């Protein structure tokens, strides 16, 4: 990196006044879709790379107020990106974040697990009267339930229980804070 004037461009330079450099670089980096070498930026605003670097520092300081930042790719290339402070909003705005709802079946199953844990898939199926394997997979994938042991019975089926994520999801301090179960929920065999 040198302070000597850059070699003459084929095109006549469109010189930018010193105090305008930071803003001009902002405009250039705004329309650029990829990182740009500092030397190229310097050429386009008619200054030395060193001067362009100084202007980029100034630009970086100003960008913060508009939710953007200067990002360096290696020593010599630079781009403007949105500030990570607003990553959540940007992600959602771009549709990179989706909100999914738990199905009625998933809620039922989750409730059964919550009140009757540890419980096996077979026991859930019996209470719900339908096959629950798909729903269980969903709940496991979402981290709301987890295997907590195996039943000492033929086949040693896996028993499931709720997770701390489950407590967080419903805003519960502990399982004791669950409202009393509705009547009619069959208890485990050993509890009558």
């Amino acid at each position, binding site marked *: 990196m040198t302070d000597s004037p850059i070699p003459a461009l084929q095109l006549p330079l469109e010189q930018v006044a010193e105090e305008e450099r930071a803003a001009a670089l902002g405009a250039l980096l705004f329309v650029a879709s990829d990182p740009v070498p500092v030397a190229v930026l310097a050429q386009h605003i008619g200054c030395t790379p060193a001067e362009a670097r100084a202007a980029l520092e100034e630009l970086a300081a100003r960008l913060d107020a508009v939710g953007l930042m200067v990002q360096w790719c290696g020593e010599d290339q630079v781009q403007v990106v949105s500030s990570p402070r607003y990553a959540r909003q940007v992600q959602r705005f*771009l549709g990179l974040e989706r909100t999914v709802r738990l199905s009625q079946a998933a809620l039922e199953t*989750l409730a059964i697990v919550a009140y009757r844990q540890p419980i096996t898939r077979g026991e859930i199926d019996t209470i719900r009267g339908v096959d629950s394997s798909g729903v269980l997979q969903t709940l496991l994938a979402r981290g709301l339930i987890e295997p907590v042991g195996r039943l000492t019975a033929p086949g040693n089926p896996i028993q499931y229980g709720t997770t701390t994520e489950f407590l967080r*999801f419903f805003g519960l301090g502990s399982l004791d804070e669950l*409202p009393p179960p509705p009547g009619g*929920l069959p208890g485990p065999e050993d509890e009558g």
Partner: protein
Amino acid sequence: MTVAPPLRLSDCQLRLPTFEGPLDVLLRLIERNQLDITDVSLVAVTDQFLAYVAALSNTPPELLAEFTAVASRLLALKSRSLLPAPPQEIEEPEPDDLTRQLQAYQAVKAAAEHLQARERSGLRAFARPPARLEGLPVTEHLAPVPLPLLLRALRRCLGRGRPAPRPYRPTPIITLAQMTSRLLSRLRDRSRFSALLGDSPSRGEYLVGFIALLSLLRQRVVDATQATLFGEIEVWRLDSAAEAADD
């Protein structure tokens, strides 16, 4: 028209029954309502312009272009004054409303000049290229569920009542011998393997049927072909072995 036509156009002197003078003056008079365009023969104007052009040693294209512009304007003014305005065209000015129209046109020219000044100054703004989103990971979040909904789901589940337990009915497993005779009894000239298995063959029937087919192939009772990988298998009986298979 506010813009003065090039000098050359004003050099073209017209001699008409109602007007004598340069062409651009004619237009000006008409536009200022100082001359009734219905009194002007556009044929005569055109003839005299063409005569003027013919007399020139070389004709500058700008002159012809300028004439075309003026002539078309004359033509538009004249046709408007001659034709009755369509009744539903609210905006159409009356023929005698030419002044208003000219004012409007002048206003347009002023606005156009403003746009032109901006264009000349190159004051353009640029948008960002579209963000490239392909390949970026998508995060999924669970919509929050109020606790009472959990309880309600449970109540609904219990209120639904459990279906009466279904008695266990073991599905009969077809034996190789049964399948072999089923295949042979259904086999016509050339049959599709899947059609030989049964009406809605189970996984088990497929499995046993395939082994039966292999065994019949080995015994040279039938022959089979499969055109494509995982495609339909076609089966046909080998005549020489027909009797052996009936055993």
